């Protein structure tokens, strides 16, 4: 039954409907996973030119400040320590290299698919301090919270968390509060939404009067989401709708939300490319403060400036496309990334570089 959402026959029909749309619309795909899914399914190639998809800040690797990555690098060099990190994060250049290159210089780092692996490692290696590099949005945050709760129950003393999580709704506030937000509608991240629920986005209707559709990740989901958004934009209906209703309810997953609130408390956070956004990050609550990795090392990290010319900040706001950046495709490529949008496999620039027909500046479609 679930496979119908990948059915190309249905997808083609919805694409036909979208192609009948005459007006112009600029839609922001908030989530990096959507950016890649849209490319991989060939949806970008199929949309009419008048529908402009711009990327958003929903790529955790892309919005983690370089100084935080540098903290992770330094922690990985600590004696009797192993850092657990998601794959993409390992290739972000920090002050003197990436987490991956730190391994070549003797650091102990393990790539993980699930934070549960770090808990198992901590349990099996009591003489080693296991540090989790905690990045991600509301989809991933409850997982880390669950892992810490289990560690608390089992009285595990050698597990730590470098806490760098970000929250999506405050980022949307920040985008829409800025001077020249030219976004006609939002494609909202389906899996973040399964946790926080449809109601978490009401402010888009009440405060900003912008239409938005919570969208899943199968090709049919994405096409349906785009079709629904176009209808709302065309009719001038500034409402939030839910395409992903099979996994997203109005209240989301209350148990996951409780788990997050049991372990973390909201705080201001710095987003690479966007600056500080109030109440957009998380910090460990007092009851879990013994898991804080920041207490392990006296960090003294100076601000690490962005490379001049790097437009990642503008790209994740949807204001510029990768092709507008002078560094894109010339000095900034996936094998030699300068900015975070090129490092992450879900970063806009990396996705464009890999999949888009317009590859480098000045090229034309085949």
């Amino acid at each position, binding site marked *: 039954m679930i496979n119908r959402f*990948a059915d*190309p026959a249905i997808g083609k029909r919805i694409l036909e409907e979208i192609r009948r749309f005459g007006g112009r619309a600029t839609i922001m795909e908030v989530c990096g996973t959507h950016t890649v899914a849209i490319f*991989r*399914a060939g949806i970008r*190639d199929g949309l009419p030119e008048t529908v402009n998809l711009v990327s958003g800040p929903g790529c955790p690797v892309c919005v983690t400040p370089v100084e935080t990555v540098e903290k992770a690098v330094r922690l990985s060099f600590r004696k009797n320590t192993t850092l657990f990190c998601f794959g993409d994060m390992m290739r972000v250049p920090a002050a003197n290299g990436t987490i*991956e290159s730190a391994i070549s210089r003797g650091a102990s780092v393990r790539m993980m698919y699930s934070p549960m692996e770090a808990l198992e490692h901590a349990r099996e290696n009591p003489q080693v301090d296991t540090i989790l590099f905690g990045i991600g949005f509301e989809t991933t945050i409850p997982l880390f919270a669950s892992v810490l709760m289990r560690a608390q129950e089992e009285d595990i003393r050698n597990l730590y968390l470098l806490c760098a999580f970000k929250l999506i709704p405050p980022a949307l506030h920040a985008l829409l509060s800025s001077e020249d937000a030219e976004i006609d509608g939002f494609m909202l991240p389906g899996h973040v939404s399964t946790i926080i629920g449809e109601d978490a986005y009401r402010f888009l209707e009440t405060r900003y009067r912008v239409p938005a559709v919570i969208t899943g990740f199968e090709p049919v989901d994405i096409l349906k989401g785009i079709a629904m958004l176009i209808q709302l934009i065309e009719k001038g209906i500034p409402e939030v709708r839910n395409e992903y209703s099979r996994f997203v309810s109005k209240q989301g997953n209350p148990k996951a939300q409780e788990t997050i609130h049991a372990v973390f408390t909201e705080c201001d956070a710095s987003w690479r490319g966007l600056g500080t956004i109030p109440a957009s990050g998380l910090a460990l609550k007092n009851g879990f403060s013994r898991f804080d990795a920041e207490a392990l090392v006296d960090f003294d990290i100076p601000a690490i400036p962005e490379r001049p010319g790097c437009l990642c900040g503008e790209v994740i706001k949807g204001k510029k496309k990768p092709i507008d950046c002078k560094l894109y495709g010339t000095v900034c490529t996936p*094998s030699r990334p300068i900015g975070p949008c090129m490092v992450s*496999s879900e970063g806009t620039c990396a996705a464009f570089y890999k999949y888009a027909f317009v590859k480098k500046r000045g*090229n034309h479609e*085949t």
Partner: protein
Amino acid sequence: MKHENVTLSMGAGGKLSAELVEEVFLPAYGNKICNTLDDAAELTIGKSSIAFTTDSFTVKPIFFPGGDIGTLAICGTANDLAVKGARPVAISVGFIIEDGFPMVNLKKIAASMQKAAASIGVKIVTGDTKVVGKKEADGIFINTSGIGATMPGMCISCTRAKCGDDIIITGTIADHGIAILNARQNLDFEPVIESDVAPVLPIVEAIADYGKYIHVMRDPTRGGIASVINEIAKASRVNVRLYENRLPVKKSVISCCNLFGLDPLYVPNEGKIVLFVDHRKTEDILEKIKSVPEGENATVIGKVLDTAFSQEIPPVHIETALGTRRFVPLLDSEPLPRIC
């Protein structure tokens, strides 16, 4: 100098591996034969045409569903020869073994090697063993080199793909990479997904009479079919279209790829061939491939277009299930280290 140190990504067979070869090895000892960068070198000794190849195996874990490092070591090298259109004749083996490696495992590996070699009538004729201290090698590393006699009529080269060629894959893709990943992550998948490691010589022998019409053959190991097809397209200066609907992938493999965020196009295979063939003989060649068990799931997955090749534009794209198109680029590094 572009890089200060050798990094893990350079061993992955993608763009960075190519850079390593171009930056260090070719300037040091490159020559006309070596510079073709084909899977096997073509030599003429007297009147005979010989293919010569080498490969090292660092797969982790050593034992995995469907085979072990020994099976891989023989099949990998024998297959590099077979896809060059050469019948493997003899293989050498070099072992680097860590102090303390269990003898019972070494015996198992040696037995696997003999089994694989015997299945295609190839002999292991010479070898060497080194033992290093604890933690100086991870268990066991194996190098095998092989020589083969080029079959008459075979003239395989990455540069021979032509406009109008059909592209054939001899069976399901991504099996090996996923089998290794599951075994490595100690994942409790059921049913167990097996590596497709196997000799491809029977397939090549079945189509030996069509040598004239077989332009390119490659075994799509590291980097998957996407990488070899990109390399071939670039070397031959042609553009390629693949068809998503035609790719043979096992459902369980798709499922695992989804779970790990992997694209089956880039996941390694160890018992398959990608062929570029003259489209006038596609049906005949396909029939012959399917007549041997190793090739029963062979199918056409794409074709070479007659559009102009350009260095600026990626040469390979895919027609998606929706009927739209996107590029299939050469990735810089492979997401799965120590896969073979």
